[in-house]
């Protein structure tokens, strides 16, 4: 199984690209948390440890043929669904949301692995159930069920950010497989009344407020609208060249909410300016285009769809997070891959990167 070709076809440049983004992220966390008074290990150091674990995971994943995932995907899916159900019953509640499950040794957030598991599951489904031509309404009935079951459970927690993410990833895979325009159109047409119902009956007040505040930030400048304004001020006041490392006043004065996690990029944009932001943006774009490239040159359908899914996951995280930071989207708790502080996000992103590298290095095997 260990083939010398595997080693030579390993994308070292891409691994380097990921390490570069991670390193910039750690540096940024260092600055973002400089004004905190915390006891114990500093955030930047903890993030470093997580990244080391993540790199270990990449290497581990690369040593196993990704086709194994196809065989175990439904088992994974079932397991995570059980976990999601358990969360609703015996989950740990913090800050008004029940997302955590205590597994004795550690606690986990089953919605996070769901992001990856939905990719694997749909990739398998679309590989084994192929239709000639584009997907019609009937062909997407089962995949829709596969998606909606976990999505509904995650919305229930409530964790809107992750639910949207799972849906976006699933939609991207479906589009890559090919879907009829009429189906997309009918989705949009049914989507509008569903949104109206959801707005009135399903969304929590805080979620509604976020949307409203996004549409009109001045509506509530103290609460969630405030974060948007302050983040925009931070990014904009950075200018072309930035205020310099550790010199972002918005950051060091702690005007930014969650500035080491979800708003880490606004810290970066403030301190490094347009120049720094464009560089990071370019690095991310390179990563995404490489992911899609891996998908298109892969010789089997499962690998292609897996690569599309993982790339979509990274892409939507980047777009939604950055969009939020620069005021294009409402505030949803979505971290920036490899960049925001947090072990969970780091592990998910690194595992995703590992899968992509895995597919890429085995492209000659078929």
């Amino acid at each position, binding site marked *: 199984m260990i083939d010398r070709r595997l080693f030579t076809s390993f994308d070292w440049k891409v691994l380097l690209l990921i390490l570069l983004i991670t390193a910039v992220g750690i540096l940024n966390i260092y600055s973002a948390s400089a004004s905190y008074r915390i006891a114990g290990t500093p955030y930047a150091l903890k993030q470093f440890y997580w990244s080391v674990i993540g790199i270990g995971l990449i290497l581990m994943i690369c040593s196993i043929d990704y086709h194994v995932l196809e065989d175990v995907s439904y088992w994974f899916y079932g397991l995570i669904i059980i976990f999601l159900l358990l969360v609703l019953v015996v989950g740990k509640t913090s800050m008004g949301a029940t997302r955590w499950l205590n597994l004795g040794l550690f606690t986990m957030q089953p919605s996070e692995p769901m992001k990856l598991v939905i990719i694997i599951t749909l990739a398998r489904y679309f590989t084994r159930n192929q239709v000639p031509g584009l997907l019609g309404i009937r062909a997407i009935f089962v995949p829709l069920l596969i998606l909606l079951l976990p999505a509904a459970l995650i919305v229930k927690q409530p964790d809107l950010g992750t639910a949207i993410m799972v849906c976006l990833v699933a939609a991207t895979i479906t589009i890559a497989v090919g879907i009829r325009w009429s189906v997309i159109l009918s989705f949009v047409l049914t989507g509008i009344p569903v949104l109206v119902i959801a707005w009135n009956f399903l969304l929590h007040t805080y979620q509604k407020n976020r949307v409203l505040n996004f549409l009109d930030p001045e509506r509530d400048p103290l609460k969630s609208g405030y974060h948007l304004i302050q983040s925009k001020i931070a990014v904009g006041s950075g200018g072309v060249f930035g205020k310099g490392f550790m010199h972002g006043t*918005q950051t060091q*004065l702690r005007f930014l909410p969650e500035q080491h996690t979800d708003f880490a990029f606004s810290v970066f944009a403030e301190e490094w300016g347009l120049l720094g932001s464009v560089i990071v943006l370019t690095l991310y774009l390179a990563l995404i285009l490489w992911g899609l490239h891996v998908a298109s040159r892969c010789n089997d359908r499962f690998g292609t769809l897996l690569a599309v899914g993982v790339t979509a996951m990274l892409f939507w995280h980047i777009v939604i997070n950055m969009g939020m930071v*620069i005021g294009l989207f409402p505030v949803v708790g979505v971290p920036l891959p490899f960049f925001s502080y947090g072990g969970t996000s780091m592990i998910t992103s690194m595992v995703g990167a590992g899968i992509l590298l895995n597919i890429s290095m085995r492209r000659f095997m078929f």
Partner: protein
Amino acid sequence: MPLKGQRYIRGGQDLSKRLYLISLAAVAIFLIILSRLWFLQFIEVGRLREMSENNRLRFIPVAASRGVLLDRNSKIIVNNTPSFSLAVVPNEVRDKDYLLDNLAQVLRIEKSELLARWERVKGRAKYFPVVLASGLTRDQVEYFEENALRLSGLEIEVKPVREYPEGMLASHLLGYIAEVSEKELEMAGYSEFNPGDYIGKNGIERSYEKYLHGEDGGRQIEVDARGRFLRVMNESLPVPGQSLVLTIDSDLQKASEKALGDKAAAAVVMDVNSGEILSFASSPGFDPALFTRRLSPEQWASYLEDKRNPLENKAIRGQYPPGSTFKIVTALAGLAEGLIDEKTEVNCTGEYKLGNGTFRCWNKKGHGKMTLRGALRESCDVYFYALGEKLGVDRIAMYARKFGLGEPTGIGMDGEKGGFVPSSEWKEKKTGIKWFRGETLPVSIGQGYLTATPLQLAAMTSGLATDGKIYRPHIVKRILDREGKTAKEFSPEIMKNIDLKPEHFRLVREGLWAVVNEPRGTGAAARLYEVRVAGKTGTSQVVKMKDSNLSVAYKHRDHALFVAFAPYDKPEIAVSVVVEHGEHGGGSAASVAGQILRKYFELKGVIKRPASDSEDESSEDEPEGNEE
């Protein structure tokens, strides 16, 4: 129709056209993000930068109110009261010079001093307030509030500070709080403090800091460019510290301090059946309130120059040769080793010869024939020289250690000293010279290298009173949580269990009873008629030894000591008193002990308080000049 069973029919090739379109879409979305960044950071930069510069966030620390100290009867001895301090937010000051001139005038603090305090916090964020002065008067607070616009960048903080309803009572025990020093800030364990924070510097305030301090809170507020309050952004409420119930009885403490007067002295009263310290006096005291409000240099100098050493906690840090009070240990060692018994007689001629040296008894005429009881009663040195010679220094040291001498008792206060118990091994290691037999004799009467703290002497005496059970001295009875419920209780803990025959303890106790109650006893000044008291006097001679010629007459500077326990038949408390330069233990120290014992039994209701005494109590606070 779905095609099943064919696992890898085709790869990504059939999708590659779509994947190409998806790539284009991704690039387009990134371009939207890029253009938004360009819009914010290039077009809007002027407006947003101005907004960021107008943003002013301040962090106002809210100090937790410190735990209260109560005596054993839940009487408050240390409380909190609000105090105003002035802080400056460096990055909001427009004209530093002008501001400092103004402050120097209003606060009456040298400008250079203010500047030094300002600079002290270099390296900290410029928007965190720096405390420049504490303990502002109402007028000063009003002045700063009225002139807030002219003197921009100032901030008034309210902090709870200590209040002492009992004045200087038990000042060494309680300690004081003051601003954390630069040196401390750099020390491990102090990292959570900020300049300007008050912490315990001494005594219980220091040793129990982690319970007393609580958790400081803070308010994050937004102000406009002129420093005017806009809104509270974030608030974390301070968590008050836990209160301590001490073992001290404040009435007994008061009486102890009164009995010590203005002498350099210490007195400890300990419950022999629990180790609780009922009174813990070190004299002269100091005013802890002065330290909270920045001690003036003059006051500081006056404390430092006072030869009586008011800042030293003599009860746990004063190490004195125990003098004849140590004969308790020598006697028990002799009995336990079978070297003497009740009837063993020594003829005291006033001196004892060993080799070339002559060792004198305090009574130059000699005591004549002495048994143990007489030798204790009249504190005959010759009897103990003879016994000491037989015992040798190492056996004496072994018994001294059994009584807890030579090591700190572990009372739970920082800086406790352990005294010293010499041995032949120690001397040889330290000086390379062998131990001389002649050096043993002073040790056997509690002189020479031997030292002990007043607290250790009280513990030693309690061991005699209880047939060998010494409870670890402690000063905190209970820790109370914020609702006033008991969070932690300190139960008695046995420190030493001295395995000697009860018979031997009884013989020495009888000797101590005779000291106080029989004619020719040296401790008659401690006698009470209502309660049977037993005690031992001591005189400790503090001189430098000239070589090893120890028989040279000691000069002045004798300290007076007295240890006692009562009641004789069923001991409850042990008392130790050391009066520096008090000449003879039988006089000053024993009478101090007598007054303390009397008060203890008065408070218990065993001794009725004479009518005139209660009047005396009420006029206690008046100057006692007429006594001089």
